[in-house]
């Protein structure tokens, strides 16, 4: 009781915690994910929880919302202990979690999704009028306009995220937990979301905000709790700290400058050539990537960048266009995904959990997957070589812990992404395509992944990067193509590229209009 938190009371910020998590510990199979962490949130407060991937943020939030039961410790809401591991009890007490991985039902409407789990009924039948009323009210509360009868599968990622928030808000929560809500959002959409959260907090809602993005936290946060390796490092008032200090607490060491490290690009021959690419969402795009060059694809989510790179690779069929890969004086025509990989492409997909990794298999197995021919004699796998090969690649990408016999699913997001990179590095690809290479990845792993990408280019590979993270795009790319509506709207070289220039092109010179109209216009995208 002695450590009852007190908060410097800003306007509207109360002092009695609405949620008080005490001494929470949770281990997963020997890994101590959360280790004796306490956290209190007061009404009207935006409380940021930061830490590298694997620091225990998500586990802590899942404990608060009753998805998992802690090994020890308890969660109090208004001083009353919650039944651990009971999501219904947590919801009833007013703890509402907005999921990191979207949990909407794609083939249901906006209204149906918002009330899902507490669908209003009338004599055993669904009360559609009440359903629409609740949904409309929740959407109005967060200030988002979207057709209640639209199917989720037809919405942009940003709108899905907003519907997810409306769903949490519809339950009249006391505490709203958001786990990396801006991971898939563009800067304009992020702005909109942050303003929305600020408004909700001003009305007395307590918000727990998990993010890797330090600037966002400093913009809206009241207090910051830093976790590292499952342990509570510190809880500080935003007013009393600065971004550098927070990053230092997160990583527990000084980071070498992650930004602005200028790589002297020396592009050689054209390696990747794509002409007249058309596919669903891609409306005639030409692009080239030279040896030693990093070409970035910028644009809003849903602009067609992922569709473009998948069409170039043949991972999804293209309706028109020609792709070639040229090196050592030989030109390979790429007419199928198999041909792309055989010719020397490597592809790090956007969704590492569903497309990039076999999560139930070991790191070794995942690394073996694209390298199986190289690692077998005839059709027999050579185990001793595989072991050495995997260990060596794990070392190259800096896997932590460097235990390649562990299942990939047990690693943190950043380390999983390193495994995806390691898979392809083993093939020594001529050209490599990376789609959102650091999404949901912590600061340290991000810097390491950036280093690896630069090294690939320095090695003379052709590198094509899709990123919604503007600083990352600007930092890595030698040339940036900005994509909108499946077309290249403009190309910026290193000298002329900056955030404003990219955004102006990405939003079609309408960067000044409000985020609200911006996002709603994406409904039919």
């Amino acid at each position, binding site marked *: *009781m002695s450590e009852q938190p007190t908060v410097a009371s800003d306007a509207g910020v109360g002092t009695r915690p609405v949620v008080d998590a*005490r*001494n929470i*510990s949770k*281990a*997963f199979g020997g890994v*101590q994910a959360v*280790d*004796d962490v306490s956290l209190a949130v007061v009404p009207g407060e935006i409380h940021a929880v930061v830490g590298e991937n694997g620091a225990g943020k998500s586990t802590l939030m899942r404990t608060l919302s009753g*998805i*998992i*039961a*802690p*090994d*020890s*410790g*308890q969660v109090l809401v208004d001083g009353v*202990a*919650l*039944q*651990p*591991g009971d999501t219904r009890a947590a919801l009833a007490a007013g703890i509402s979690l907005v999921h990191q991985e979207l949990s909407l039902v794609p083939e249901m409407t906006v209204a149906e999704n918002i009330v899902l789990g507490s669908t209003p009924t009338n004599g055993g039948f669904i009360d559609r009028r009440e359903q629409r009323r609740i949904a409309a009210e929740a959407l109005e509360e967060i200030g988002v306009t979207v057709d209640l009868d639209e199917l989720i599968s037809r919405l942009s990622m940003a709108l899905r995220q907003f519907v997810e928030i409306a769903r949490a808000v519809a339950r009249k929560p006391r505490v709203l937990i958001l786990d990396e809500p801006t991971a898939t959002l563009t800067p304009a959409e992020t702005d909109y979301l942050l303003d929305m959260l600020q408004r909700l907090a001003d009305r007395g809602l307590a918000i727990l905000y998990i993010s890797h993005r330090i600037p966002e936290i400093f913009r809206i946060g009241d207090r910051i709790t830093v976790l590292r390796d499952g342990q509570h490092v510190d809880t500080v008032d935003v007013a009393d700290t600065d971004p550098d200090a927070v990053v230092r607490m997160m990583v527990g060491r000084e980071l070498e400058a992650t930004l602005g490290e200028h790589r002297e690009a020396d592009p050689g021959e054209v390696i990747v050539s794509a002409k007249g690419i058309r596919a669903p969402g891609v409306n005639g795009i030409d692009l080239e990537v030279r040896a030693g060059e990093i070409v970035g694809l910028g644009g809003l989510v849903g602009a067609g960048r992922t569709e473009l790179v998948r069409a170039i690779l043949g*991972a999804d069929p293209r309706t028109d266009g020609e792709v070639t890969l040229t090196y050592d004086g030989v030109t390979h025509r790429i007419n199928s*995904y*198999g041909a*792309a*990989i*055989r010719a020397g492409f490597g*592809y790090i*997909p956007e969704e590492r959990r*569903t*497309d*990039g*990794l*076999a*999560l*139930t*298999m070991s790191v070794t*197995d995942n690394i*073996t*997957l*694209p390298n*199986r*021919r190289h690692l*077998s004699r005839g*059709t*027999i*796998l050579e*185990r001793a070589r595989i072991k050495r090969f995997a260990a060596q690649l794990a070392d190259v990408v800096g896997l932590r812990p460097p235990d390649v016999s562990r299942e990939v*699913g047990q690693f943190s997001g950043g380390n999983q992404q390193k495994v995806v990179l390691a*898979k392809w590095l083993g093939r020594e690809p001529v050209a490599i395509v990376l789609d959102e290479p650091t999404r949901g990845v912590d600061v340290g792993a991000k810097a390491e992944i950036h280093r690896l990408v630069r090294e690939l280019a320095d090695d003379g590979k052709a590198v094509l990067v899709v990123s919604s993270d503007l600083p990352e795009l600007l930092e890595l790319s030698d040339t940036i193509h900005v994509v909108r509506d499946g077309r290249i709207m403009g190309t910026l070289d290193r000298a002329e590229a900056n955030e404003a220039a990219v955004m102006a092109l990405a939003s079609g010179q309408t960067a000044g209009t409000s985020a609200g109209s911006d996002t709603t216009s994406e409904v039919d995208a």
Partner: protein
Amino acid sequence: MMTDEPVAETPSPDQAAATTPAAEPGIEERAVTVTEWMADRGIFIFTALLILAAAVFIDGFASLTNITDVFNRAAPIGIVAVGMTFVVISANYLDLSVVAQVATSAVVLIAVSNEYGFVLAILAAIVIALVYGFVNGVAVGVFKANAVIVTLSTTFIGLGLLRWVSGGSIYFGPPDGPVRVFGSTRLGPIPLSMIVLVAMTLLLSFVLNRTTFGFLVKAYGSNREATRLTGANTAMVVIGAFVITALAAMVGGFVLAAFSNTAVSSMSTGFDFRALAAIIVGGTSVFGGRGSVMRTLLGVVFVSVLTNIMVLSGLGFGMQQMAIGLLIVAAVSVDALARKAGTS
């Protein structure tokens, strides 16, 4: 494993002592560990306990005649099961059409060798197995149709065709033919059928664990899209899994025919679920990606011993059938719980 790690250094006596809720997660944690452990290792213990219990309590179990008889009966289903393990690991549930495949193989072996000779009979059976494997594999791997429905349909087609052509008659092999000789030969006390089962297990275990094909079957079962995106020809992986199952079912049919030197279209009823029971009880996951051929062999031993115990205890076929059904439900539930625990 019994007690959780000691609570961290920071002393907070009032909270550590007071709460009953804090005690419950510990229990759940242990329960989860037990399910995971059961899904992973349970079969070894259960099989050993079952054999031990049977040897002690069941009259006539621990005799050489009974044990050879158990294995003789287990061999055909076991051979089918080790092959079908490939389909299960590829996350395509199972191949129901093994029922039709085994019966067809048995009838072809005896009926065709009676008319045209032994070699032609085996060639015909191989061709038929390949057709089964390709039809199932193409429908599931290329057209992405649901494996359960596809193989349920090919069962109907195959059994229908067999009954139509054979008229439902029972075929007997000549008393001195190669089938009869195979069925009655023993190496010391060991029937040939058992040696075939062990040989098939070793061969398929090698294919699954050591070849690029087997590796891809596992990878595909774990995540088909990620496997496709590494440039693998996933359609061939699925076709391969069904072809291996079909070839194993063919061998299982041979052994079944040789056992009694007779063949009839209805002789393999229940092979689909008995094989599945052995696979799942062995610890291969129906979610794909996890499992092994060796485990299936162990599952075969477990299911066969259990059946034998029931026979020796005078329990009828109905009871045996119920037991197999219960066993599958229990095993898939443990599998699902373990998966849930592993991913949370």
